[in-house]
């Protein structure tokens, strides 16, 4: 399996790059018309005017020098091909300008990816220093290198940042937002995001103004509005930085969602304040009307953003209802609609981040129910891939831009900014939690408050906003940028590096690495209903009451409209159960043997918990119907896959998705399974002799790398044996089954018709009570780990198409 996976790596790697590059390239003209002109761009490193005119004036990144070095040998090679006077047909020509932009973009992305890769190769470094810090250092080095060679390094341009780099990260965050925790703490998050950010902005702005007035160190020309603008830029907690650091420290969910939620939702405040002060700074006088309008615009920006997001989210959900025939483009709808939501919001200067989050949150449950399992995996992988590449690029460019940008270092300004930033954050958090704790049932402890205050990292959004400032109106832009970069570096390096030891030192509750068990799901749902009931009884229309109302509305109308087919009626518990079963089955296939089912379920059989059950039930595995079906599906799927590769490739269609089939035919199959059970029982009454010793079955399936190894120490147990050594018939599952039937070495019996490639053997007639279903999972801890991995990645791992393991950000 490993070898096969390894072989496929290059093509897999190339695909995403091409994709991003294509996307970036395709959007370049748009960027062009968007007013890159008025932005300060770093000088293109090419001094040749002819070359310069050939390329687009607003190029995305200036070339790092190694590019030109790399192509130099090529030039030499090609020169013999040219004969100067007579213009012969150029056998080998060079036209770098033709490919320059995509070439450079891919080069940067490649650099980012290689860096990320490199950090994981040396684990000792990344244990101490967060990845974001390392990336910034790399950026600094690269920038220094470029500068040392005499070129001018590129600067993280605001448009690139806001239009291309930021959206993937936010969509990833929004799509996989832990909704339950988020809504449960929404009040607190909103207060931190809105009031906290406002407080930070005004406190900082005001104090900085005071500093500018008194110190008399040449800062007198900076007015109050400019200072407030600066305050509003620097005061917002940055989602990218927070994510990068918090994912590594594995803090408990409450703190994570509080800080992260704040960083997401404060976008609206930042956008409004930014535009407000930028506008006002040009006015001579600010009237009360202006302030009122500014206040109004906050609501418009935030609610408008959410509205745009919800609209696109609903459209996306509705679209996904009809994609069942063209599965390949399913993931694209999710990306496109969310991106459209972001752009549409930005179009009106609404909060794009809010729009993106809203659309992700709204579309997810419906889209997930509609699309195929593979599409879901694709979405997951693409989002994670995009966001981690974006994040890496952002940090690298932050470093490069630091070297590249012009700086104006003013000790008073920078140091007081840093100090006031920290003071404002601490005071804000303390004050607000004091207020919030009056209403919260789960109070925020002093430790929590400390982490919230300490986790207020600043990042690239502040830098980009600062970069956006107009030089004409804000002559002190360079000084602002220097101060912003200092604050960013301080928070990312000092706070980011010390937060992990501090978390350990303070013994802040960490995230519990729990897999969600079916019991917990039942209990949670039970508790939800109970609390709703109690709220109704005591007449308090609280959280649970409204949630219940919303759920009912969702079930009654939304799901019907937005989800196709049977699954719209599927209650949450069933859906959860199916998902879990699926994971276990996949897990099972992954672990390479039925003997080692990682799930806890495997160690106990129906017999153990229900001795009163009929003998019919006794014999068959626990969880029989569903589990069997799932396993069977997965196994068959795997068989099929070996075959699929032989199939002629068609760009527009995917082979019928066996998972889909599994979902849809669940009910039908269950029926079948029951029949099987009956027949099986008949069959089992006749003791069959040992047909398949484990070694034999292993030999038989040895040809397939995904072979199953029934555990040998389970002599008395019914063993599910799979026989993948089936001929290369690409046609259909049924055909496979037919053939499997032929291969099966059981005495021919009618029940095989139902078995679909899964053959059950019972070695001896079992004495009552000695039949366990599956053997106890011996290697529990490694399989648990695998389970965790599987939870974060429900994709069908052994699928060669998707088999490339995803490396999560926080490793």
């Amino acid at each position, binding site marked *: 399996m490993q070898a096969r996976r390894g072989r496929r790596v290059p093509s897999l790697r190339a695909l995403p790059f091409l994709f991003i590059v294509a996307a970036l390239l395709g959007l370049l003209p748009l960027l062009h018309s968007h007013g890159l002109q008025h932005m300060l761009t770093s000088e293109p490193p090419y001094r040749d005017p002819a070359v310069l005119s050939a390329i687009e004036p607003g190029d995305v990144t200036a070339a790092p020098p190694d590019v030109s070095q790399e192509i130099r040998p090529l030039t030499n090679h090609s020169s013999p091909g040219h004969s100067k006077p007579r213009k012969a047909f150029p056998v080998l020509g060079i036209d770098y300008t033709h490919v320059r932009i995509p070439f450079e973009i891919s080069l940067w992305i490649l650099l980012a990816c290689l860096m990320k890769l490199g950090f994981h190769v040396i684990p000792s470094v990344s244990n101490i220093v967060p990845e974001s810090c390392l990336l910034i250092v790399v950026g600094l080095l690269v920038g220094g290198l470029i500068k040392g060679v005499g070129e001018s390094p590129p600067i993280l341009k605001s448009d690139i940042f806001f239009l291309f780099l930021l959206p993937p990260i936010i969509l990833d965050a929004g799509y996989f937002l832990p909704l339950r925790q988020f809504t449960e703490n929404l009040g607190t998050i909103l207060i931190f995001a809105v009031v906290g950010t406002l407080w930070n902005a005004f406190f900082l702005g005001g104090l900085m103004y005071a500093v500018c007035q008194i110190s008399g160190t040449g800062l007198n020309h900076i007015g109050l509005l400019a200072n407030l603008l600066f305050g509003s830029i620097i005061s917002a907690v940055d989602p990218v930085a927070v994510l990068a650091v918090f994912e590594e420290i594995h803090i408990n969910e409450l703190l994570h969602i509080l800080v992260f939620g704040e960083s997401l939702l404060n976008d609206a405040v930042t956008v409004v304040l930014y535009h407000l002060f930028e506008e006002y700074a040009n006015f001579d006088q600010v009237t009360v009307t202006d302030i009122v309008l500014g206040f109004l615009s906050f609501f418009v920006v935030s609610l408008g953003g959410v509205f745009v997001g919800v609209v696109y989210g609903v459209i996306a959900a509705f679209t996904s209802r009809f994609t069942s025939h063209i599965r390949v483009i399913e993931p694209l709808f999710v990306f496109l609609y969310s991106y459209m939501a972001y752009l549409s919001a930005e179009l009106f200067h609404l909060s794009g981040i809010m729009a993106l989050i809203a659309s992700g949150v709204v579309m997810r449950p419906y889209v997930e129910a509609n699309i195929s399992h593979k599409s879901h995996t694709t979405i997951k992988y693409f989002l994670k891939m995009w966001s981690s590449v974006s994040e890496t690029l952002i940090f690298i460019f932050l470093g490069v831009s630091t070297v590249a940008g012009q700086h104006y270092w003013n000790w008073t300004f920078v140091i007081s900014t840093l100090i006031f930033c920290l003071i404002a954050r601490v005071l804000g958090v303390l004050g607000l939690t004091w207020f919030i704790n009056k209403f919260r049932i789960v109070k925020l402890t002093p430790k929590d408050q400390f982490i919230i205050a300490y986790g207020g990292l600043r990042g690239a959004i502040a830098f980009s906003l600062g970069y956006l400032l107009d030089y004409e109106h804000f002559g002190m832009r360079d000084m602002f940028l220097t101060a912003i970069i200092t604050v960013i570096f301080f928070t990312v390096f000092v706070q980011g590096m010390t937060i992990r030891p501090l978390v350990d030192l303070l013994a802040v509750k960490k995230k519990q690495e729990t897999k969600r068990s079916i019991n917990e799901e039942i209990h949670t749902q039970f508790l939800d*209903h*109970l609390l*709703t009931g109690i709220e109704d009884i*005591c007449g308090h229309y609280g959280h649970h009451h409204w949630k219940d109302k919303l759920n009912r509305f969702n079930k009654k109308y939304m799901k019907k409209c937005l989800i196709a087919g049977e699954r719209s009626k599927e209650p949450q518990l069933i859906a959860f159960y199916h998902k879990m079963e699926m994971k276990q089955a996949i897990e099972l296939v992954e672990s390479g043997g039925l003997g080692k089912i990682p799930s806890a379920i495997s160690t*106990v059989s129906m017999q153990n918990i229900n001795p009163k059950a009929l003998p019919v039930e006794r014999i068959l595995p626990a969880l029989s119907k569903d589990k069997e079906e799932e396993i069977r599906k997965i196994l068959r799927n795997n068989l099929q896959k070996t075959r699929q590769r032989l199939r002629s490739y068609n760009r527009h269609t995917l082979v019928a998705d066996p998972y889909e089939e599994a979902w849809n035919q669940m009910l039908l199959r269950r029926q079948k399974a029951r029949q099987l059970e009956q027949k099986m029982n008949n069959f089992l009454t006749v003791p069959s002799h040992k047909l398949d010793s484990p070694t034999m079955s292993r030999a038989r399936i040895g040809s397939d790398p995904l072979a199953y190894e029934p555990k040998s120490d389970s002599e008395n147990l019914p063993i599910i044996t799979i026989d993948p050594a089936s001929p290369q018939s690409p046609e259909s599952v049924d055909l496979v089954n037919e053939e499997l039937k032929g291969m099966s070495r059981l005495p021919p019996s009618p029940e095989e018709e139902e078995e679909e490639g899964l053959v059950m053997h019972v070695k001896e007639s079992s004495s009552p009570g000695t039949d366990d279903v599956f053997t106890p999972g011996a290697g529990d801890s490694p399989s648990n780990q695998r389970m965790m991995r599987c939870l974060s990645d429900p994709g069908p791992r052994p699928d060669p198409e998707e088999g490339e393991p995803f490396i999560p950000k926080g490793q």
Partner: protein
Amino acid sequence: MGSSNSMPEEIQELADKTGFTLEQIEHLHRRFKQISGDQPTIRKESFDRIPDLEFNPIRSKIVRAFFDKRNLRQASVGLTDEINFEDFLTIMSYFRPIEMNMDEEQLDHFRKEKLKFLFHMYDSDNDGKITLHEYRKVVEELLSGNPHLEKESARSIADGAMMEAASICVGQMEPDQVYEGITFEDFLKMWQGIDIDTKMHVRFLNMEPIAHCH
């Protein structure tokens, strides 16, 4: 006792017993009278007056919990027919949020109390164990909002959950070993992942009397 809110000592006594504030008791008393229709006691039928409760899939379990003597701390078994205001408050007190000034021991006790209440809701036959049968019933009820659903799937979920519970609580089992049901200790174990003290609570303040409730 139901109409006793005119006597401050008695309210104070109730407050001490149940941990509610006077204000909360007043609120709850108003609500109690609404449900009981100004009677001193509540009977099972009284809960029909709460329209919102009708849609609750575990309605019968909730109502039953109010009359469970184990929850009322009266006896270890059986149901009463009617409860008075004090009993009502006792039940409600299971849903009080934790307080800041509780020490570890109190917290633990508080947590256990809440879980006991839940456990009693699952364990309908008082034998101290949630048997497979009872568990199946619970899951069936949870899914009862969906009429299209087969009983079969509810059963298989319950079976799966039970097996999971057995393997969590007992670990490896011999084939002839029998796991009779989830005991309270096992129940505690299973709830470890869910922060019960941060979840199982209802806000009792700011309650407005509901107009459409007779």
